[in-house]
């Protein structure tokens, strides 16, 4: 997908002025965090499970090649196929090739962020294969030709009215007098449309919440059951997953499942949790004839061994988005690529480059709420800072802002000069701001004063007052006398 991360500020500005989006974000910001808190509170071992989940993935990332090869062996033994894709283009070609061999005209899809990352829908369409999203949210945004705005709730930015509008526009057979005024009616309408497509599809494309090396299985987690129809009805099942989704054993997978849904939606388990292992075996009542796993790298292996390795622990629960005050202010589309929120701000520069995604690690107060709720304890603020350090190394003191920072840092290292210059500055500002106590406008600080008043300094610095006594400002003397 083409990124608009360079326009992050403009995107964010527009998002802040979209009343429907703002309503949706407010609901999201209140709903998910409360549910997560309650779910975590009901499980005494939740914090220990987070530690365990972190250790599982840390171990995997130290032995990634071993577990991936083991996974491939197991899949192959069971009659499936593993395809290695170094980048998005390779993954797209592999998937198209499988579809062509199967003679597929239509592909049903369950929600996959990797599918979004490689923009598989556009590619299949361009090559004469119809992709059909079957997750309700994904189906809606596919109709609207929009990217997802949240990794687990792709259409969270839309109101019910907007969904109804979209259905009426795209479902041309829909009678005008049919009411679509509540979520259930909208769901029924989508189901009616999708039922035939499930049956007609030749290939089912799913993502994977995890891949299990021990058994050669993929794990699918949904609340709608659409993934189960997607993989079990067509003749061919293709799994598209990035390589860090691997875990060693079934037990490891279940440990991670225990923190996944709780962190995401506050559910103890998602409604459907499915383990798919290879194609249909003799005697199986259903299942696909062919089972393919496309393993995508797309820049991830280059993060291994760097200060960003821990990002590869991410299980895409969305908790960091739900708790992020920046995401909660601007929504997912502002980030300009398929991922968003804190995990997106760390991962996107790793996948499309820090020059392209330069805004994202900077658009954060580093408030730390993301890290405090991440089930995998990923130190997201530390990595946002690490991207800033990479930027600083690459561009040095290029811009005016950086020169100002350098000048300040030079002063901060020279206490005597610092006291002199800062003292003069606050004396001046203190003198002109004394009457009102604050400024409505300040040159060089309009980013502040455009929307906020700026408190005026008292006049003398604390160090001046403490060490040298007051200089014409009675407050210093008064304060010292208090002691």
């Amino acid at each position, binding site marked *: 997908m083409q990124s608009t991360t360079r326009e992050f*500020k403009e995107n*964010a*500005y527009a998002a*802040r002025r979209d009343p429907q989006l703002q309503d949706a974000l407010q609901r999201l910001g209140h709903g998910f965090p409360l549910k997560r808190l309650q779910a975590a509170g009901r499980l005494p071992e939740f914090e220990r499970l987070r530690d365990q989940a972190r250790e599982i993935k840390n171990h995997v990332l130290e032995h990634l090649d071993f577990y991936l090869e083991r996974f491939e062996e197991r899949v192959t033994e069971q009659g499936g196929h593993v395809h290695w894709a170094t980048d998005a283009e390779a993954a797209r070609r592999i998937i198209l090739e499988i579809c062509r061999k199967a003679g597929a005209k239509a592909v049903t899809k369950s929600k996959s962020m990797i599918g979004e990352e490689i923009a598989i829908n556009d590619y299949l369409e361009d090559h004469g294969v119809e992709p059909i999203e079957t997750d309700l949210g994904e189906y809606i945004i596919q109709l609207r030709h929009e990217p997802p705005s949240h990794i687990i709730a792709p259409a969270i930015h839309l109101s019910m009215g907007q969904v109804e509008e979209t259905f009426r526009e795209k479902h041309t057979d829909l009678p005008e007098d049919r009411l679509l005024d509540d979520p259930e009616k909208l769901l029924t309408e989508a189901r009616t449309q999708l039922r035939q497509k499930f049956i007609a599809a030749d290939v089912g494309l799913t993502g994977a919440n995890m891949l299990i090396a021990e058994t050669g299985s993929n794990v699918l987690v949904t609340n709608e059951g659409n993934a189960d129809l997607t993989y079990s009805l067509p003749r061919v099942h293709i799994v598209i997953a990035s390589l860090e989704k691997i875990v060693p054993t079934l037990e490891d997978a279940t440990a991670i499942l225990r923190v996944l849904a709780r962190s995401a939606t506050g559910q103890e388990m998602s409604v459907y949790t499915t383990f798919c292992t290879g194609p249909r075996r003799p005697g199986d009542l259903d299942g696909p004839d062919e089972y393919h796993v496309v393993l995508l790298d797309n820049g991830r292996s280059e993060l291994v061994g760097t200060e960003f390795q821990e990002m590869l622990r991410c299980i895409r629960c969305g908790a960091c988005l739900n708790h992020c*005050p920046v995401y909660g*202010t601007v929504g997912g589309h502002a980030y300009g690529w398929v991922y968003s929120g804190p995990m997106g701000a760390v991962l996107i520069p790793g996948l499309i480059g820090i020059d392209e995604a330069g805004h994202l690690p*900077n*658009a954060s*107060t*580093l*408030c*730390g*709420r993301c890290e*405090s709720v991440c089930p995998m304890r990923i130190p997201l603020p530390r990595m946002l*800072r690490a*991207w*800033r*350090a*990479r*930027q*600083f*190394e690459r561009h040095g003191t290029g811009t005016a*802002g950086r020169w100002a*920072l*350098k000048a*300040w*840092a030079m*002063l*901060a*290292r020279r*206490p*005597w000069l610092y006291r002199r210059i*800062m003292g003069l500055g*606050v004396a001046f500002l203190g003198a002109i701001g*004394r009457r009102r*106590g*604050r400024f409505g406008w300040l040159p060089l600080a309009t*980013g*502040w004063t*455009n*929307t*906020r*008043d700026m*408190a*005026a*300094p*008292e006049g*003398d*610095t*604390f*160090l001046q*007052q*403490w*060490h040298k006594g007051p200089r014409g400002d009675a*407050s*210093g003397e*008064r*304060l*010292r006398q208090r*002691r």
Partner: protein
Amino acid sequence: MNTPPESQNASRPKVGLFVTCLVDLMRPGVGFAAAELLTRAGCDIAVPESQTCCGQPAYNSGDVADTKAIAKATIQVFEGFDYVVAPSGSCAGMLKVHYPEMFKDDPDWGPRADAFAARVFELLSFLADVMPLGDVQAAWPAKASYHDSCAGLRELGVKQEPRRLLAGVDGLEIVEGEEAERCCGFGGLFCIKYEDISTGMVDVKVDDLVATGAGMVLGGDLGCLMNIAGRLQRRGVNIEARHAAEVLAGMDDLAPIGVSGGAPEKSE
């Protein structure tokens, strides 16, 4: 005065006040309040004159080399004190959490940063637990809401300490905001670089404060408080902002943040 004071009494710990650049430059009253409270709690305090800033603006801008230089200078200035106390969770977090992280692979400075960090405390938690203030001896009839600044809360775990101390102030009622733990949108240079997003964030905070019915917002970090005060004032909301240390020290002759000196403004 870069050396710790000669202790008159061996049992009184020597405390170096890291005043923080914002308090030093913008609101010295917080520094005096901190000094008074620490003295009352039984500390011998000193304010080394060659302190500047903890280095956060450089650190959060990715300028690692300058941050390390500033950090080394700060560590040197405060070596020899029993404790180093800062009236800010953000600056104390920088000293206590980020200095050791920055020097963790440095065989010389790593151990020095660790030893330094072990002696660093945020003012309010220090007064609650390390050198307890005991009887607060202050009266301040007001209804106030407490804003938990991010670094204090999530890096240092400061949550109940300021509330415990403030509960000892006569006449002060604390009402909790639903969004007390939500970032106010200050974030250092963030509030200038991403002013529109920052404004959206501080508006959530302002709305939440209004909903509490409080007449005052208290906190432990001047940066957040200046941001919140600035937005409250621009929106014409009559809620005053103060550092919690001012209230604990009973410093009611100091005007609220962003209000001209003397008696507090009563209407806007």
